């Protein structure tokens, strides 16, 4: 019983440590700074992509959109001449319903994990997307077909399969906290912390690892690849922060999470935005988010451009 109690902390200590709780996030931040009417901008990946491209934010190039059931059978026409592509639901979240095709030939499709699918199976997958299987609330959806991200080799040993991405929490346009999410065997190539992926907290000024967790507990090496997680350094860090910062002007959301992947050739690309980013970024960083948000509220100047804000953040002493 005493051991069980040790698992818990005290609200007072958590408050002192500046930990942001779910209720406080919902009530004090999201309800206050994220207008409901702006949600569709980030919930619909097609819209997000269009907006991002309008202000020269890199995103994976769109190949096409399958909107209606009768178009599904012709999806191969869209990808004609390409050797690889990604199918994802426009309203999906947490990487649900994402199908990565590495190569295909004569009605057989090879996925990123090496599985072989028939035409019928891919057809079914797209149909499922349209019927809303992966969308929030189960409403009808469209399937987005886009180019595959060619993942930078920089992180080769940091992730077990899957794509590691950087999540930047942006508050009032200022990048406030960031983490990198690394897939593990347990998470089956997905980058979701609750499925067992590794979260690495990043220094906001340098993009270097400061802390790493797996299942809420601090770790130092990747459970599958054995690489020292503390050696992680995200290249092109300023560009990562720029994407996050620009997303503020792009969407008008006062509190958002930008998921960014690093492409070999095209550099950091915005994968998706989230109007209700989770709080596990605090665990990955080993510190509370509330402290940072408070600092931004109280001392950071207002009315700066996206570029000025990033520079301001980079200049801050840790």
């Amino acid at each position: 019983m005493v051991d069980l109690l040790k698992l818990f902390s005290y609200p007072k200590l958590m408050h002192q440590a500046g930990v942001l709780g779910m209720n406080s996030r919902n009530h004090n931040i999201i309800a206050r700074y994220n207008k409901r009417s702006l949600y569709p901008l980030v919930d619909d990946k097609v819209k997000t992509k269009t907006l991002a491209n309008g202000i020269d934010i890199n995103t994976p190039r769109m190949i096409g959109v399958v909107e209606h059931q009768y178009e599904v059978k012709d999806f191969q026409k869209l990808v004609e001449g390409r050797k690889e592509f990604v199918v994802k639901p426009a309203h999906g979240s947490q990487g649900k319903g994402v199908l990565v095709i590495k190569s295909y030939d004569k009605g057989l499709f090879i996925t990123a994990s090496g599985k072989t699918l028939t035409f019928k199976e891919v057809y079914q997958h797209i149909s499922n997307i349209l019927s809303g299987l992966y969308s929030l609330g189960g409403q009808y959806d469209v399937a987005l077909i886009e180019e595959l991200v060619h993942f930078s080799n920089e992180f080769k040993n940091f992730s077990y399969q899957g794509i590691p991405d950087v999540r930047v929490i942006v508050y009032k346009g200022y990048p406030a906290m960031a983490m990198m999410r690394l897939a593990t065997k347990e998470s089956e190539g997905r980058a979701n912390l609750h499925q067992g992926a590794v979260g690495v907290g990043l220094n906001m000024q340098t993009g270097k690892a400061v802390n790493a967790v797996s299942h809420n507990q601090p770790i130092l090496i990747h459970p599958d690849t054995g690489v020292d997680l503390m050696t992680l350094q995200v290249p092109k860090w300023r560009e990562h922060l720029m994407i996050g910062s620009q997303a503020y002007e792009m969407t008008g959301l006062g509190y958002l999470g930008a998921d960014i992947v690093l492409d070999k050739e095209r550099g950091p690309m915005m994968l998706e935005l989230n109007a209700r980013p989770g709080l596990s970024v605090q665990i990955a960083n080993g510190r509370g988010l509330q402290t940072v948000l408070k600092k931004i509220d109280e001392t950071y100047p207002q009315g700066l451009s996206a570029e000025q804000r990033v520079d301001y953040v980079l200049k801050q002493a840790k």
Partner: protein
Amino acid sequence: MKRFFSVNAVLTTLLVLSIIFAAAATYYKITYWGFSFKPSERTDVWTIDAKVSFVPNGDPIDVSLSLPSVQQGYKILSEDVVANGYEIQKDEKNRRLSLKSKAHKNKQNLYYRVMLYDTEDGKGKFYEEAPQKTKITVDDEQQKVMVDDIWRLVDEQKSGTRAERLIKLLNEKPLSPEVDAFLPVKNTTRVMADKIIFLLGTRGIPARVIRGVMLSEKKRMLPADMMIEAYEGSKWIVYDINSGKAGLPKDFIVFQRGGVSLLDVSGGYDSQVRFSVIKSVVSSFKMAGSRAKYDGSRLFNYTIYDLPTLEQNTLKWLMIFPLGILLVVILRNVIGISTMGTFTPMLVAMSLIKTGFIYGVLCFAVIIGLGLAVRTMLTRLNLLLVPRISAVVIFVILIMQMLTVFGYHFDLKVAASAVFFPIIITAWIIERACITWEEDGVKNATKQIVNTVFVAIITYFVISSEYIRHIMFAFNEWNLVILLIVMLLGTYTGYRLTELKRFAPLIKDK
């Protein structure tokens, strides 16, 4: 611009106001409508009909009848007088009914009806007058011997008051020779009462008859029941004439006591009063209505309690929802347990009430288990979302049908309770569990199901209490308080209990 009133302050003020309102309404309902916190759903109501009949002698008529007053254990629900052409007057202080009329020719029948109900809180108080100590002296020498013999026997006994011992002696079977000699051959309760009063009088103990009605069913047109009351040890004690048992029985309704008569009729002769008793069982809330009307309360007509029983039962069922909802809000926003669908656990708990706990949980497990098996097979068919969930719904219906038939034939209550579960909700639990299984693994799916069932069970134990359901219905004003608590919880920005564990590593590093 700073907000002048914070949402929190406004809600808190409203909450305080609603609590005051609810408390006042509760007090009012208890005091004036006789509502109780106990879910005693039915109440015995006794109807006593007193029929006064006499033959007029040609003079103006004046009838005076002693009426029952509020006493221990019973409260008066309503009183009614049927006396056409009579001027009716009721003296509430002395509890006497007076009926006046000009002269009549034919035999007169007048009726007084009182309805009484069982109650815990009816407190009856008798007006205690000091008795006049008058000692009866017996002149007849032979009788004096008999009386002395009887008292000698009485005083040989030790336990109880003298009056109690005396009455017991007079009721002994077989009678002792001394008593046998004293009592007349043709004995009635009335004669017995007179003899007891006489015997007590010879020893200076004041005694008198109490008239009233013993509540028992199938009593028709009987004269008033009598009891003896004797003054000993500076208080009046009531005795049963036929057993000597001391104390006023709970179901003896006193009509007349002390120095007054039960019935006085002037302007008539051959007067008598006959009592009939009917017992009926009435729903408490129905009674509350007549009670409120008796009190002249119009407010009652605009409450849910004045509705027909069917509507009341539906509302009684609905009135428990707010409490269930409050629980869900607390478990989610304060404790931080995530479940499948916000109100799913509450709806499952509602079903458990209808099925009974053990049977319900077992049956639900079977439905979910079979459903998951079927749903897993459906996965291979790769059906589209809407047709697939529809198929699951139909499967759930078929499973329920199968279990019900099975349960009926093998007399298994477990299986027969299947029909009470909400079909669509059950289908969605199966669908979500299956998707979570596929996407997030068995561990997460199991966790979700366990959480959902756990919350359902907690909710069940709160709303299954007959007391709580009764209170939420009878004192439905508390739903307003619940509403404001829920709204206030909407502004709760503190940590959830589960977050204290989730974010605990952040603290230990420091």
